[in-house]
């Protein structure tokens, strides 16, 4: 019902920058798809197009088989920064995500989510009093309070320390199990992609294109120390190497199979 289809999307900015070319990504209902690529690959651009914050130059985006234009009630997002509204208390910030809910239901879900993200008792605090990790938890709760069909995550963990990041991975996976949104997440972190995703789409830059799509068929909960996990990481890193090699049409290949990857 809330599968997401990104069909032959291209985006060229007004200044002539071609950020994306012919992007084709489908996510099944409830699937977690990670878009993996270095900075400047057009990852943020892609998420902004899906969120309806910008319009594609060409191509179509559909949710549940329906083409969409602009923002959509079924699509919610967590940004790279928490982007909490500083004039709303923590509880009201979470409730802000549920514009379309009736107030009683909204309050009920907000307090349930506060509890769920480990911030019960914080509803009357200001966002300025939260740590980076807590803020991002609130942003996740805000994005999920409306039970969106599609959740977009734009590197929301990249600014956090490894401990906080790991606990947020757990939180997102837990909430995903309960609410089963389709998740399109963007990251430049191989470990994060293999931890969370059902499928990893490796992108290459200038212009941003899909290089390769890799199925991650490791059962959850995933053990980071398992050989399956390690093998998958290696497979993804090799795909990245190939994408970089492809990107270098002339001159000696700096790294190929067996070479040193900048990702290691």
């Amino acid at each position, binding site marked *: 019902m809330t599968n997401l289809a990104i069909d032959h999307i291209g985006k060229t900015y007004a200044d002539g920058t071609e950020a994306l070319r012919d992007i084709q990504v489908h996510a099944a209902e409830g699937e977690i798809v990670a878009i993996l690529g270095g900075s400047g690959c057009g990852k943020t651009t892609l998420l902004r197009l899906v969120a309806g*914050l910008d319009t594609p130059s060409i191509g179509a985006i559909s949710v549940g088989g329906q083409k969409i234009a602009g*923002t959509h009630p079924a699509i919610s997002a967590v940004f790279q920064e928490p982007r909490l509204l500083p004039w709303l208390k923590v509880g009201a910030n979470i409730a802000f995500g549920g514009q379309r809910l009736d107030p009683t239901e909204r309050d009920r879900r907000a307090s349930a989510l506060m509890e769920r993200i480990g911030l019960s008792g914080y509803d009357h605090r200001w966002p300025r009093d939260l740590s980076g990790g807590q803020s991002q938890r609130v942003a996740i709760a805000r994005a999920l309070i409306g039970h969106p069909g599609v959740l977009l995550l734009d590197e929301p963990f990249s600014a956090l320390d490894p401990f906080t990041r790991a606990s947020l991975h757990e939180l997102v996976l837990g909430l995903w199990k309960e609410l089963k949104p389709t998740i399109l997440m963007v990251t430049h972190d191989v470990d994060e992609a293999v931890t969370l995703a059902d499928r990893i789409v490796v992108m290459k830059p200038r212009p941003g294109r899909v290089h390769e799509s890799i199925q991650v068929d490791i059962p959850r909960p995933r053990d980071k120390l398992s050989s399956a996990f390690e093998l998958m990481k290696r497979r993804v890193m090799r795909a990245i190497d190939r994408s970089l090699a492809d990107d270098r049409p002339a001159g000696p290949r700096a790294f190929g199979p067996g070479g040193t990857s900048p990702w290691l």
Partner: protein
Amino acid sequence: MKPTGFIIPVLLGVTWEVVVQSGLATGRLMPPPSHLLHSAIGLAASGELWTHVAATMTRIGLGFLFGAAAGTACGVLAGASGLALRLLDPSIQALRAIPSLAWVPLFILWLGIFETSKLALIAMGVFFPVYLGVLSAIQGVDRKLIEVGRVFGLSSTGIALRITGPAVLPSWFAALRTGLGLGFMFVVAAELMGASEGLGYMLLDGQQMGRADTILVAMIVFALLGKACDSILVAISIPLLRWQDTVRASL
């Protein structure tokens, strides 16, 4: 003010009091504190002071209201619509280039010597800082927060009321305080240009009568009223701006 801030004024006052009381100076041009207090009590008791305060405060109040309302309205309009900005802003900037007091003769010619021309002058003084403050605050609203509003399904009215509005509130209050300060400056100018009551009139009257004490009492009352009005604005803003870190720091 910290207690240390009072040391110099109190020391000066006491010294001057002693100098005048001991007959070393007459204190005619610079009356000592006891003399000022005596004059102030006299002016207050006769009701004269209150008539002047009421006249000045009415002018400030009305002028501030009109100026702040017009400044806010124009700022919101220019901030909300690109067309309004291109239409309005160049003219307003051009008018701002004229020193405000240069308007006085024209206002008197157009609106007469009485209240209307005074209010126009005060309102104009308040208008410009409020307009500029509101406009630049709206232009400076974080696009990222507006995107949050869009993603969560707010209409453009919803975004204006629930994102832009709260976001510009701190700058709006700052602009109102600047406007109020200018309002006080212009009420003096307005009352010096001809009035039969008001603290500005008291200043002029004191000068003509050679009464330095009247002048000084009027000046002190101006300072107290200005500070009081500013404090009222701050007091109104505090509950609305509690979310800001700086509110706490400034308390």
